[in-house]
Every structure is written in structure tokens, then in C-alpha cells.
């Protein structure tokens, strides 16, 4: 019997697990994919929104602001790539400048600080590559960019370090009320718990509806992206938005926390929950719209495209906490944008509510720090040499594009909740995420994974169970 079961190990589930682990509780996280951060939390813009955009009074507005305020400290503590680069929302004709005023008012109501209207000259000075048609912008200095993978993996590791059990490749297939609490059915056996936290992303409505009469409906909206080589990661310094349309924040142009250039997303309503395919039309739309914001978009530097699903709930806001009819069952549902930003703040409140429900005490000992890891590429020559002296595996470069060494790959496998797949390595170390997209390093990483995990190399997968990489050895088909 667990005190608490969290369904879903996206950024929301992982952050809740970290917060809840502060209490003296027996906790499990159930995740249907083979790793954490395999759904929406891996397919988004990675923006820490300032919070002027959300409708005042909504949960989105509230948690956006607190999440934004928590982010710098959290990222420093957990060694998560983050940069407060500020955002510019640009407009292309004078009449629209009035709308920026409205956004400022809304921002002030939401508690966002430092918002400023900039004229054309100042805007262009800040961002010389913007399109000439720009007439002015709204500057939000508290906006930032974060590595969404690390914002999920980091807290998940802390949870593990503090005793939380993660069950991966474990899909919840049924949820029932029992005398004491809940029975959670999965493909990996049954679990029992006093409380259940529903952080299942676009599938959270199904889980809620299994057990509550307060029905929920998530209609995913897809967003597609193009990611560019680091070579052009400095095309813009700030995150560039166009005026929001009401349903979404529109196509942005931004550097990522890791130094690439990212453009997207579009917004395709009523999408299938399983469909994250990119489309020719979608990518074209994203390119065309981004070209309105910046001049000379270097389309020959695109290295990959991807898509993600926004978990839009029909009422339009986050749904947090217990439905009236099911005490002990806590939702974190409808967490679309700004969900990434809000995750640390949502996690604190949910953990508090669950702990109060269970009358739990804080643990005497709580580990705050992640097991050490280094980004070799980011160090100075002297620091590199120091690290090399401690472990010669730092002298062996595996991923050339991102300069990732053998020591870092081994560390990613051996850490708490270590990587078991090519994608797992990629999200933890960036190996394979550079300009050649794993062309060079994938074979080496397969070998390292196979050796470290003592598995046949043919069984090592990209991400999910069937995404095998090699099908066999030479001539074994003859």
C-alpha cells in the first residue's frame, strides 16, 4: 500500500514527486513510457513565460507568476540550463501598439514586473535581425528559457534520491475506489494507494472520468516546430513573440537554453491524442510566420522538426486538486501552456494538499542536491583538464557535434533513474541532438548502453519498446 501514487512522469508528475518526497510518505510514480519526459514535456517551446498573457484571476495566471519566480533558484539548485533572456512581443502596425498597452495592464494585474513598451528604434537595437516592418514591442525582462528535459529529469532524480519509486513502462488501465483508498490497475500489476495524483497529460481527462462524476474533456491542440543548428542560435537574443491570437501565443522565434534556434508552434485544434506527426503544411506555416518576425531565416540550418500536444481542457484553465466527489484523488489536469513554467509552483501546492489530506510530516532528512554531473563542453580548458585528471573517460569524445564525452554518457546511465535508451542519453547529455543528429555517435552509444546494461546490442532501442535501432548483423539474413 502506497501513501501516494502519481500517474504520469512529465514535468508536472516529476515536480510533484520531488515536492511530495519532502514528506514522510511511501510514494510511487507510474509512467507508461520507457523513460520520464516522453510526452508533451519533451515537445514544447521551453519558455519560462513572464505571465502577462494569462487571463487575470485564472489558475494559469497565478501559477505562471509563481513558477516564473521560482525558476532561477530551482534551476541553479538542480543544475538545469536556464537563462532569463527576456521576451519581446513585436507588432507590425501602429494601431496594434494599443494592444501592447492592454497587455501591460493585464500583466500588472497578474503581478508581472518590469514590463515596458519599446519604440521601433530600441526594439531594433536590441534585436537587429528583426523584420524591418516592426513598429514597436512589449519587453518582458522576467521571461526566460529553460531546458524542458532537465526540468523534468532533475526533479525526478531528486524524488528517486529521496525514496520515491518510479515504475516505467507501466500504463494505468483502471482506477477504482476501495475502502481505504484506491486500486490502480496497470499492465505491470495492481497497485494500492491512499491517494492518487493524476498528472497524465493529454490522457488525464480519461483517468478523471473513470472515477469522478465531474467529467472533464481534453481536446489536444497540436503545435509543430523547426529546430536550427547552434551555428545560428544567436539570430535573436530574446524570445520573439507576435501578438497573441487568443487561443495561443502564436509562432515564436527564440534561442533555446542549450543554444539552438527554435521556431514554432502552430496550433491545430482537436488533434488525436496519439498523433504527434509533423506535416508539410504545418512546417511551412511555421516558417512563413517566423519570417514575418525575423529577416534572413537560415532555413538551410534546420536540423530537425517535432511536434507536441497542448492538453486543452474545455473550461480553458488548469484543473488542480480534488473533484468534490472523490476525496483523495488529486488532479493536475488541463496543464497546457504555461504548464512548464508553472510546474514547480503547481507541485508545491499539490504536494501540500496531499500531505494535509494524509496528515503527513516533513522528513527529517531530505536530499536537495542531484548526483553530480558535468557538461564538459561548457567548461574552460583548465577545468576540462582538471576533470580529465579525475576520470580519463572525459578525454574520449563520443558525440562530436555537442562535444559529449564517454564519462558523461556513463554518468547518464549510472545516475538515479539512469538512461536506458538512445533518446534517454540524448535528453540527459545532448549526445545525438546536434547537427548530425546522431549519425556518428549512435553506434557508439548503442555499444556503451549494451555494455553498461549488459544487454544484446540489438535490444537497445531509440525510445519505446519497438523502436529498435539495429536489426541484426551482417549476412545473418543470407
Amino acid at each position, binding site marked *: 500500500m502506497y501513501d501516494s501514487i502519481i500517474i504520469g512522469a512529465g514535468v508536472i508528475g516529476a515536480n510533484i514527486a520531488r515536492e511530495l518526497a519532502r514528506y514522510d510518505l511511501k510514494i510511487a510514480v507510474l509512467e507508461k513510457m520507457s523513460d520520464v519526459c516522453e510526452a508533451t514535456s519533451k515537445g514544447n517551446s521551453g519558455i519560462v513565460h513572464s505571465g502577462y498573457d494569462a487571463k487575470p484571476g485564472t489558475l494559469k495566471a497565478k501559477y505562471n507568476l509563481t513558477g516564473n519566480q521560482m525558476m532561477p533558484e530551482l534551476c541553479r539548485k538542480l543544475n538545469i540550463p536556464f537563462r532569463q533572456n527576456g521576451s519581446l512581443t513585436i507588432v507590425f502596425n501602429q494601431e496594434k501598439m494599443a494592444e501592447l498597452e492592454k497587455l501591460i495592464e493585464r500583466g500588472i494585474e497578474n503581478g508581472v514586473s518590469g514590463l515596458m513598451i519599446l519604440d521601433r528604434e530600441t526594439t531594433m537595437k536590441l534585436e537587429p535581425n528583426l523584420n524591418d516592418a516592426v513598429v514597436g514591442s512589449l519587453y518582458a525582462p522576467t521571461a526566460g528559457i529553460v531546458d524542458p528535459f532537465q526540468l523534468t529529469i532533475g526533479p525526478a532524480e531528486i524524488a528517486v534520491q529521496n525514496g520515491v519509486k518510479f515504475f516505467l513502462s507501466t500504463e494505468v488501465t483502471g482506477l477504482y475506489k476501495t475502502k481505504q483508498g484506491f486500486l490502480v490497475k496497470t499492465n505491470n500489476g495492481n497497485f494500492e494507494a491512499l491517494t492518487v495524483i493524476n498528472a497524465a497529460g493529454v490522457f488525464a481527462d480519461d483517468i478523471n472520468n473513470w472515477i469522478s462524476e465531474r467529467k472533464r474533456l481534453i481536446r489536444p491542440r497540436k503545435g509543430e516546430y*523547426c*529546430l536550427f543548428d547552434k*551555428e545560428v542560435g544567436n539570430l535573436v537574443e530574446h524570445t520573439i513573440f507576435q501578438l497573441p491570437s487568443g487561443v495561443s501565443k502564436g509562432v515564436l522565434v527564440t534561442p533555446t537554453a542549450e543554444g539552438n534556434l527554435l521556431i514554432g508552434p502552430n496550433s491545430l485544434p482537436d488533434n488525436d491524442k*496519439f498523433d*504527434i*506527426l*509533423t*506535416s*508539410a503544411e*504545418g*512546417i511551412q506555416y511555421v516558417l512563413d510566420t517566423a519570417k514575418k518576425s525575423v529577416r534572413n531565416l537560415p532555413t*538551410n540550418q*534546420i*536540423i*530537425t*522538426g*517535432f511536434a507536441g500536444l497542448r492538453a486543452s481542457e474545455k473550461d480553458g484553465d488548469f484543473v488542480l486538486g480534488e473533484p468534490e466527489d472523490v476525496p483523495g484523488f488529486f488532479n493536475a489536469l488541463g496543464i497546457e501552456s504555461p504548464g512548464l513554467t508553472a510546474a514547480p509552483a503547481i507541485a508545491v501546492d499539490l504536494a501540500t494538499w496531499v500531505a494535509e489530506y494524509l496528515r503527513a510530516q516533513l522528513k527529517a532528512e531530505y536530499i536537495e542536491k542531484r548526483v553530480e554531473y558535468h557538461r564538459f563542453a561548457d567548461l*574552460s*580548458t*583548465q*577545468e*576540462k*583538464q582538471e576533470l*580529465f*585528471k579525475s576520470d*580519463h573517460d*572525459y*578525454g*574520449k*569524445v563520443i558525440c*562530436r*557535434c555537442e*562535444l559529449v564525452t564517454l564519462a558523461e554518457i556513463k554518468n547518464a546511465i549510472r545516475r538515479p533513474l539512469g538512461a536506458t535508451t*538512445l533518446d534517454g542519453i540524448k535528453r540527459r547529455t545532448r549526445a545525438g541532438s546536434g*547537427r*548530425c*543528429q546522431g*549519425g*556518428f555517435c*549512435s*553506434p557508439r552509444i548503442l555499444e556503451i548502453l549494451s555494455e553498461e546494461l549488459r544487454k544484446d*546490442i540489438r535490444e537497445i*532501442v*531509440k*525510445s*519505446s*519498446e*519497438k*523502436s*529498435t*535501432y*539495429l*536489426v*541484426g*548483423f*551482417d*549476412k*545473418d*539474413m*543470407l
Partner: protein
Amino acid sequence: MEYRDLVIIGAGPAGLAAAISAYEQGIRDILILERENFLGGILNQCVHNGFGLHTFHEELTGPEYASRYIDKLSDLKIEYMLETMVIDISEMRNVIAINEKRGVMEIQAGAIILAMGCRERPRGALNIPGSRPSGIYSAGTAQKFVNLDGYLPGREIVILGSGDIGLIMARRLTLEGVNVKMVLEILPYSSGLKRNIVQCLDDYDIPLKLSHTVTKIHGSERIEGVTVSQVDEDLMPIPGTETYVSCDALLLSVGLIPENELSRKANVTINPKTQGPIVNERLETSRPGIFACGNVLHVHDLVDYVSEEAALAGKNAADFIKNVSSEGLEVEIFAGDGVRYTVPNKVNPINVEKYLPVRFRVTKVFSQATVLVEFDNLPVHKKKKTIMTPGEMEQVFLPKSWFTERPFLRKITVRIEGDENA
């Protein structure tokens, strides 16, 4: 830090030929840095024949062609380091490399030859819509799997792009028992050599579909198939021509890009057309003393021309290194901010042999500070240091070539810039 007359980055056919040529011009202090654990570069995975017709008048395999140069290299005892990756170079020819034995190495070079080759364009550059399953490889990666590692990338394969590597892999995989279903080419003609189309496709009844491309990728985990469409003159897919082809792997042979990330770090100007450095008739880049040759300069079809070009780069680099200035002005070396003294304080550039070591001490403890060397108040060398203390002697090497580049030099300054920390 150590000093070398000539540092060559990459030991493919370009790097090898450049080294041999520089040696023949009298340069002895040569170091080749290669990140793989073998010499010969991409040739090692090209086990087919068709190399060296021009140079040796016989048809060699890739490894055979390479071994002609490798043998020569060992006869001449030219030094090389394997599994050593160059991670940074500066405009002033400071090279940072790394390997498992020695860790991070810093080498000041009199001249540098860039010979890093090229890499294949990844899928992203194509923007093929659909899912992102496993089972999509560049043809060169597949070639490496099959020829060097002994792995099979798939059992039923479609190849997109009819470049030579794609054609050669079609045959190679067929010989391994793989069902190569078709080769698709978006253009109305193949970019590969005619002889490869005949010997690699026609002889094995593999269809080459010109004016066709992949318009969608299917399969959520492992690739399950592709939609193939015919394209019009503008290369746009023609609606109604879509057919579904099942496959468990898709190989991309859609072009090569010169590998110039390092060149950019040294502020070498890149030609947007070739994506390689802009060079003069001596194959010297926009940075004096930095030369380029082979596929890093522009993509070559035939290795013979790579070797030829590289020999020229080797010779010119040798000339650059040997160039002796006849002017005889004495130049003063100043200890600037943060530097207590330097040894020596004066130098006559004519008497500098390979390089001038300037040793110095700092005035107090510095952390995260930068050592700056200026020639006539213009920075020629910048080096960030985590920590420097007065108790430890520091040094910089000023290559002979820095002096020959500036015949009217009057003053050298060494100083420290940045945050200090008591």
C-alpha cells in the same frame, strides 16, 4: 602548452597528402591530429573499388588507396595522434585538442592545415513530414554500420537520394542479403556517377525512380513505410501519384556539408556557396597561416583531386612557416597590467627560430582572468585562465610567423585582463 611548426587537423586523404608534401618541402616538426582510431578518414569505410585511377592508374579500394599514403607517412616518420579530437582553434593558431591519454592539450602552431572532411546532411534539412521513428539513417552511417561494425540497419530498405554513397550502399546491402526496394531521386537525373548506376543498381535490378521523393514517413516507433510521390518540374509533389512502400529502414543520401565548425571558431570566412572557407590561390583562408584542403574546402567526388589539392596546401604551409623577414628592427616586450615581468624584454624577430617563448609572472592572484598578448596594441592572443598566482610561472609562445606577418612591429605587450581575486 607546446609548439609545432605545422598542425594538420584530420588524417583523411587530404591531411595525409598535405603532411607528406610539407615534409618534402623541408618541414619536420609536423603533427597530425585525427579523432578516429585509424588514419585514412572516410576511405576506410569505402570498401568498394574505384579509387586512384588518376593518381596510380589502377583501381584501388578506399583502404588500399589510403594505405599508399599511410605507408609513406610511416616511412617519413611523420608524427600523428589518433583518437585525438581538436575542439578549438584560434585566429592566432592556438589549437586545443583532447584525447584519452593526455586530456586537454594546447598547441601553438606556426601554421595550420584544415583537413576535417565533410559530413552528411541529416533528415532535418529535408523536412520530411510525419513521425520520427527509429530506422532512418544517413547512407554514410549505414555504410559505417555494415562495413566497419558489422551491423545491419534494416531488412527492407528504401534509399532516398542517388548520390554515390547511396548507390554504393544499395549494392552493399543487397550483397548482405537486404531487400533494397528502390532508390528515389527528386531530380530528373542522378547526381551519382554513371558507372555506379550501372554497377550498383542495374546489375542488381534495383529500380531507380527519378523525379520521385518521400512525402511522408510512417510508423510511430520503428519506421514501417514511406509514401512516395512523383514531383513536377518545380520539384513539388504531384497529387494523386502517392504510393505506399513498406520498409523497416530509410537511408538518406542527400548531400554532404563541409565540416567547418572549427574553421568558424578561428574566424575563417566561409563561402556560403561551398560552405567551405574562402581561400586564395595558395589555399590560405582569410586567416593568415591557416590553410584548407579536401572536403572541408568543398565536396570532392574523386579522392585523387583531394590528394592533389592537399599537396599544394602542404607546400604553401611550408613556405609560410619558412618565410624569413629581412628587416632587422628590435621590438620591445612590455609587462602590462597585472604582469610583473617578462623574459625576455626585447626581441629581434630575425633571430626567432620557430617561436619565441615569453615567460612571465603575474602581480597577484587572478581567477577567471585573461592573458592578453598585444602586437602594437592589437590583441594577437587571448587566453582565459581559471587561476594564476605569482608563484607560478606562466608562458606564451609567439610563433615566428606572427613576426613575419608584421614586418613593422614595434611593441609587444603582455597583460592580464579581467576579474581578480585576492
